[in-house]
């Protein structure tokens, strides 16, 4: 009952956030000097063609009206037409989303695992912990583009172990999900799977780097605090070894802050994917968005923002739910 209510209120606030988001995007876009009708009609368009394009885009109506129309269409999954690709924005997003999703999810998993390892090792005393702490701080300070180019130089150009960019062989299966890892598993295609993994390694690593460090740092400090608590002392007094106590008592209690930071890191990664996709020629939403922005493609920008905003809100929701599952104290309404 309480849980359901919590979920309901989350969903409500989620919708609120999306409305704010779409409105903000719309408002700002309308303030821009750029003219999407001009983009649609093209550089050599006649004034009549321009007016027609303006009407087609609904730019001749007052702002609020247009916005409400837009919201209405949104409810039907209609994100409008991209003026650069002349496709439905929703179908464009459908095309590019799986690539970004695959990248971000793999990077997210890497970041979680990396953060967990860094956090747990770093929480113990000794030189190893010191080294881990040093690495975490240093890693969190490295500009993405620097790391990306260095890794490319070493692993692609000099060692030749990994490919430089793209998602791999264009013929690799991209059905039914568009997520190549899964698709190739479904098709039991080992070679294509290896190719997919090879292409994923570098961009996912670079994307995961700073989130892993952030998660590791937070986990380390909260785990250290947890390991100093009385209940951990009681558990040790019952004869548990350090790893056993960390596993049974420490992590569960320390994971909360690390999870919230992990949720935040998702938004970091969504943002970071713009640079990563550019550097690794990754055919995803980030590149689509850059193009859309370069061309003042209003519907495309709004569409991507909505999808990203939705993803972010969803992740926050998942994180919250996970926290509730982990910490029984959060299960009751306060």
């Amino acid at each position, binding site marked *: 009952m309480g849980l359901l209510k919590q979920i309901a209120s989350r969903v409500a606030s989620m919708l609120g956030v999306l409305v704010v988001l779409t409105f903000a995007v719309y408002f700002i876009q309308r303030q821009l000097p750029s003219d999407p009708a001009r983009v649609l009609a093209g550089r050599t368009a006649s004034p009549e063609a321009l007016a027609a394009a303006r009407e087609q885009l609904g730019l001749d109506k007052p702002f609020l009206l247009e916005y409400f129309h837009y919201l209405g269409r949104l409810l039907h999954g209609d994100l409008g037409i991209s003026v650069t690709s002349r496709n439905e924005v929703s179908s464009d997003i459908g095309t590019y989303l799986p690539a970004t999703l695959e990248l971000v999810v793999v990077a997210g998993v890497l970041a979680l695992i990396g953060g967990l390892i860094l956090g747990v090792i770093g929480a113990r005393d000794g030189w190893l912990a010191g080294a881990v702490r040093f690495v975490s701080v240093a890693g969190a300070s490295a500009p993405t583009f620097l790391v990306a180019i260095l890794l490319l130089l070493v692993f692609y150009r000099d060692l030749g172990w990994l490919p430089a960019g793209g998602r791999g062989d264009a013929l690799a299966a991209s059905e039914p999900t568009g997520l190549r890892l899964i698709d190739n598993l479904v098709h039991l295609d080992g070679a294509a799977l290896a190719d997919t993994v090879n292409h994923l390694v570098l961009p996912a690593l670079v994307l995961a780097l700073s989130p892993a460090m952030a998660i590791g740092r937070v986990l380390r400090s909260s785990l250290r605090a947890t390991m100093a608590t009385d209940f951990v002392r009681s558990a040790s*007094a019952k004869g548990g070894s350090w790893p056993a106590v960390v596993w049974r008592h420490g992590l569960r209690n320390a994971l909360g802050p690390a999870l919230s930071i992990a949720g935040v890191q998702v938004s970091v990664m969504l943002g970071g994917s713009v640079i990563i996709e550019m550097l690794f020629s990754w055919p995803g939403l980030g590149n689509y968005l850059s193009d859309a922005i370069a061309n003042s493609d209003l519907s495309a920008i709004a569409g991507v923002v909505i999808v990203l905003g939705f993803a972010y809100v969803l992740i926050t929701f998942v994180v919250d739910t996970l926290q509730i599952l982990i910490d029984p104290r959060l299960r009751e309404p306060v």
Partner: protein
Amino acid sequence: MSDAVARIEKLVVQFDRSGTPFRALKGVSLDIAPGEIVALVGESGSGKTVLGNCLLGLVPGGHRTRITGRVEVGGTDMVGGPEKDKRRVRRNELGAVFQDPLTSLDPTMRVGKQVRERGATAQRALDALTECGVPEPGQRIRYWPHQLSGGLRQRVSIAGAITAADPGGVPSLIVADEPTTALDVRVQDQIIKLFARLRDDHGCSILLITHDLGVAAQIADRIVVMSEGEIREHGPTARVLREPQHAYTKKLLESRLDIAGPLPPASVVEAGEPVLTLSEVVKDFPAPHKRGEKRRVLHGVDVRLEAGESLVLVGESGCGKSTLLRIAAGLETPTGGRADVPPAAGRPQLIFQDARSSLTPWLSINSQLSERLAAAGVPRKDRPARVAELLGQVGLDARMAASRPRQLSGGQCQRAAIARALASSPGILLCDEPVSALDATLAAQVVDLLDDLRRSTGVSLLLVTHDLAVAKRIATRIAVMTDGRIVEEGPVEQIFASPAHPYTKQLLEASPSLAAVAS
């Protein structure tokens, strides 16, 4: 005594306090025989907990702590020995109850699992919970710690301590650090009896760390007195209590407020004006776990406090005493009924149970007092003198004014809080458990201070406690509360001599006293 379960020899523990070494134990030696209950008493900070932890092989302070000497449990070196052996001993032979029950249970693990953590069977866990006086243990094992009250949580951790992995299911040595602080006297009594039974039935040894000599007197075979990291005195319980050798022990015994003592000389209170009238006070709180539902905490309470008198409210934990005081102080609005203070009496000042946390941590004592003085309209130039005067009144050195609360000891904080209350020149002082957190010596000092203040300044006191000894020492009138109602009320002599309500009788019976042992 080569067959001792535990042996401590010349134990020195030296901590590193931001670079400067600090010796918490300065060469302590102690043996505990099988089936023996040893009570470790001493002032706060004397090293009792550190000693207990060393027995468990859990050295506080990490790798910068220096330890010399030997600690053996069942023949295993608990300090220098291999971690694996230490774990085996902890798992099979030791039981530990830590000082703070509220924080020693993992909030993310069901209590049943925590009791069984060392591998005991479900049945053994149930039995242990029953033995520790947990009602409905079959249901409770599925609870999360936060769903239990403080007292229940303490009982659960005791149950965890007495269920070891070995077949007997009972450890051979239990280290119990202040195991009854969160319990009211009746449950405390139950636990003490449980310890006695564990020794009798299973031959279990117990190191009972406590600051309450009364508890020690009830079951200990031997008393060990510590102060400043050294053992001052030890011997059979009766001897130590009857013929204390060391000056420190004597002081401890003298200052203890005991329920068995005579009543202090009655002070005449003129039947004056009522300065505080609570009539038909009802208070509802939203019920936890249930949205929208209410829980009634106070069921129509009447209290009349007269000028210059000292009314003590006693009652079990959770019966609504603090809530009543907060209503009187205007910090809480009653759901029904009225709280009246005539304007002449001024705003009642509340002195909190935990004095340290009632002082703003980042402000010096001086600024906290001056702030009150300013609010009371004292001109700026007079304030320093007035601060010094107030501090003098509570027996604090005027130089303490510059200190922040964390630089003061518990007793000093309690006095500073009283001084701060006095700065507002109140007609009424409301005191919530003013001494329960203090050791015997400090407690006596604070109680005396309050009594003196009442006699000298004529301030009215409304004081809450669960310790009848405190009530006896300071009260002119006593009101007994249970379940949100006042069930008995009367002059102090009358309550002690002829309690009428069964609950009052139970309270008097369960209150520990040294008198039985000492005589």
